[in-house]
């Protein structure tokens, strides 16, 4: 924020909670990267690590919630301060869920590494999708850090592309299952992973929409891309 409060302590409190949200964001981003890595490289240790580290994400969520409720009780934030607090409270919910999705991917990764599998898919499509989702999250967090609302359009576009990839991978997996019923169990697992990644994209999109609310005071949820472009422009 550009200017400072008369109460310096208030500035320090806001900055501290903002830093925690960004810390939580980068932790979650790393969880996605590691979960994917464990999947494509069949790295069981890494998968276990991701699962173990989920509690760090959860702890940060609890901390930020608590900090925000203290600020509301003590400072009665208004205008942009209020919007930032509300935005952070919502953002950490999405970040926590992204963390859960990453953990989910890590668990499937462990399953795919079980030795008696007769078929192990190559995860090209999944990798593309995961990279997109991670990129979306990265842009959304960057937009939050810079108070930049313009990125929401790019993220909304990427989310549409991610959804298309998801639809494609479903069709692809169906062909496998039709060809050979023995692949059904594995295909379903891959499908769940694709679903988890698609959800990560949705959460990243939510975060970028909260950034618009924080910066502009405008609610761009549940509206068309064109309407969104109008809101962000003026």
């Amino acid at each position, binding site marked *: 924020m550009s200017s400072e*409060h*008369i109460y310096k302590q208030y500035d320090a409190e806001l900055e501290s909670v903002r830093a925690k949200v960004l810390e939580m964001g980068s932790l979650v981003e790393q969880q996605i990267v590691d979960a994917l890595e464990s999947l494509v490289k069949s790295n069981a240790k890494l998968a276990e690590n991701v699962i173990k580290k989920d509690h760090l994400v959860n702890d940060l969520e609890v901390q930020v919630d608590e900090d925000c409720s203290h600020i509301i009780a003590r400072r009665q934030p*208004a*205008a942009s301060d*209020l*919007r930032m607090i509300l935005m952070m409270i919502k953002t950490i919910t999405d970040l926590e869920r992204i963390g859960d999705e990453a953990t989910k991917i890590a668990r499937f990764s462990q399953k795919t590494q079980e030795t008696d599998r007769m078929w192990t898919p190559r995860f090209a499509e999944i990798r593309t999708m995961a990279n997109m989702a991670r990129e979306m999250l990265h842009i959304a967090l960057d937009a939050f850090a810079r108070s930049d609302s313009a990125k929401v359009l790019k993220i909304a576009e990427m989310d549409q592309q991610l959804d298309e990839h998801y639809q494609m991978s479903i069709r692809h997996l169906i062909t496998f299952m039709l060809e050979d019923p023995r692949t059904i169990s594995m295909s379903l697992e891959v499908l769940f992973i694709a679903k988890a990644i698609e959800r990560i994209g949705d959460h990243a999109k939510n975060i970028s929409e909260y950034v618009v609310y924080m910066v*502009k005071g405008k609610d761009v949820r549940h509206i068309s891309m064109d309407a969104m472009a109008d809101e962000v422009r003026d």
Partner: protein
Amino acid sequence: MVNTSTPIKAESKNLNFYYSNGHLALKNVSMPIYENKITALIGPSGCGKSTFLRCFNRMHDLYPGNKYDGQIVMHPDNTNILADGVDPIEVRMRISMVFQKPNPFPKTIFENVAYGLRVRDEKNHRVVADKVEEALKGASLWNEVKDRLNDLAFNLSGGQQQRLCIARALATDPEIMLFDEPTSALDPIATANIEELMNELRGKLTILVVTHNMQQAARISDYTAYMYLGEMMEYGDTDTIFTRPVRKETEDYITGKFG
């Protein structure tokens, strides 16, 4: 920005105000006051909000050399209450005022409330007694004082005295009530009582309130005006002003970045 279906009770039009020393305290202030709503005026000390409030009942007339320029038009009769021929006493019958510190007269509780009626030359005892009871009930004070109406007003607590002043202002059936920092001399419980009372008066009476307490403005008002250095910086519905003000000056003031 604002609800256009609500009728306007009064309207300030290009109002300038000069104190007798030549100081221009209000600069071209224009804003509507919506009927039966609460409008809050906020801004730092010396911004002109009390000066503006006092124009509404011609308080500045008490000191020679003060000069109004512009209009405050009352609806529906379209009377410019600042016009030369208008009697300030008439204006004060229509627009009454409650001050920062409770200022009951050195009279009994009953006589304090009856005072405005006596000025109006109301002689009928029954009418006066009914009006006093109605006003005290309207000010949520009746139950606390009905058995001691002949006690001196000074025997009441600060919060009760302030409600007595509100009852006194209500007794003449004003169209607009002005509140100048009505709770800044009161404790939180008494403040809550006054705010609750203002909330009850909303819908029956048009209220214009000056407050230094921004949370108070946020809690009780329908519309908020932010003033700075004699100018109306931003006016809008209270929800908008406190969540997404348009001007940076307003934003800085309400978030505590003013300095």
